[in-house]
């Protein structure tokens, strides 16, 4: 039987935890195209994704889910539309402890919504750090509509990542059901 592949995209601002998110759930080591960071302003980590992250989850002999993590820096945003093509849904990762990134997260969310009318969820990452904003405050700060799922997330924990992806899948089913109604 031919193998079917489906795709989900993981996006969000620079250093929000996209690579970590994909890495926590992927059965393969995340294939990342990375380079050392040259900009002093972005020296919060040593490397960054310059093309995309690629993770794989084998569901069955005939079904594979691919996770594509987008590069977070704006100069690579030409990749976003390409990666969004044909996706089942997407996750926007936001670093809950860095309010300076919230505006960017909102902008990325709107950009992806414009690319493809697919379901999405917003993952409030780094909820384990002391300065993390509470979900209620984050929802208002991001100006999320009531129907948008905002989920607590700790990207380094597999269980947490699994729950985010499950909620996205539930959302896809809910949308299909509401379309039929």
């Amino acid at each position: 039987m031919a193998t079917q592949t489906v795709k989900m995209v993981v996006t969000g601002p620079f250093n929000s935890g996209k690579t970590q998110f994909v890495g926590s759930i992927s059965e393969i080591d995340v294939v990342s195209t990375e380079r050392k960071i040259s900009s002093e302003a972005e020296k919060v980590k040593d490397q960054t994704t310059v093309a995309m992250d690629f993770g794989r989850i084998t569901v069955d002999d005939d079904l594979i889910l691919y996770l594509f993590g987008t590069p977070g820096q704006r100069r690579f945003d030409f990749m976003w539309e390409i990666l969004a093509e044909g996706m089942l849904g997407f996750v926007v990762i936001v670093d809950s402890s860095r309010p300076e990134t919230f505006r960017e997260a909102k902008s990325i969310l709107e950009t992806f919504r414009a690319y493809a009318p697919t379901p999405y969820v917003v993952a409030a990452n780094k909820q384990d750090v002391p300065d993390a904003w509470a979900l209620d405050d984050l929802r208002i700060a991001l100006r999320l509509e009531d129907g948008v799922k905002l989920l607590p997330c700790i990207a380094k924990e597999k269980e947490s990542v699994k729950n985010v992806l499950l909620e996205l899948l539930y959302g896809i089913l809910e949308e299909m059901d509401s379309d039929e109604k």
Partner: protein
Amino acid sequence: MKGNLRDFSPTQILNLVSLAHKSGTLGVEHKEGRAMLSFKDGKLIFASVGDAEGSLASILARDGRISKDQASALAKRAEQTGDKQLGLLLIQKGYVTQQDIVVSIKKHALSAVNTFATWKEGPFAFDTARMPSADRITVPLDLENIIVQIARVQKRDEELEDEIPSLDIFLKFIERPQVKLKELQLSKDEWRVLNYIKPENTIRMIAKSLNMSDKQIRRVIGSLREAGLVELMQIHKQRETLSVEEKDKKRALVGRLINHFQSISAD
């Protein structure tokens, strides 16, 4: 809730406090001094900024209700008795009325918030456990009007260009049943724009009808957004229509993915 004003403007913070009906004290550090703004259920109840200290004696002196000498003497007394007792004493002695005190405190709070609103940088932290001491006289002030007023005077043309990149966008009202539009103090331009918000009107169409420039309409929409009254409706691609067979296939596929994830255990 912590951050820096360079990433989150004062009006955005006040809007969040109002929308979330927060109680607690916002502390902000700035080169002009320290600001302490206290809130109860989303309303401002107490404020002090920089040298403009929030004791009753100093507030009444700045408002011209009592002299500076009287304020100094009363401040010493207040250290023993507290502001509430001091207020009662002043009313009993006929120096001020209760209304005088309320008006002066409101003026002081508004002045403090207006000063805070001009700050562009400085770390802030919201402490939900901290409230003014029990002896302070607090007067609740609705934030919506304050926010609209502050947002009105701030020039944010560059930020507005970024937030509203295109005028070919529609607007919608945000559901806030507790806010009574009739009681809001909006400018004539803000009311005019609100009257034109309909599903079929883009921002450009509203601007043309009201003879407003791109800058003017962006400022008005920006103020209304900051006050949490309206939001942009982004135009998105329509979902493709699937056949019954395609829907069933997709549903089955998503079902398989869900089953798989539900069976994954944490390592």
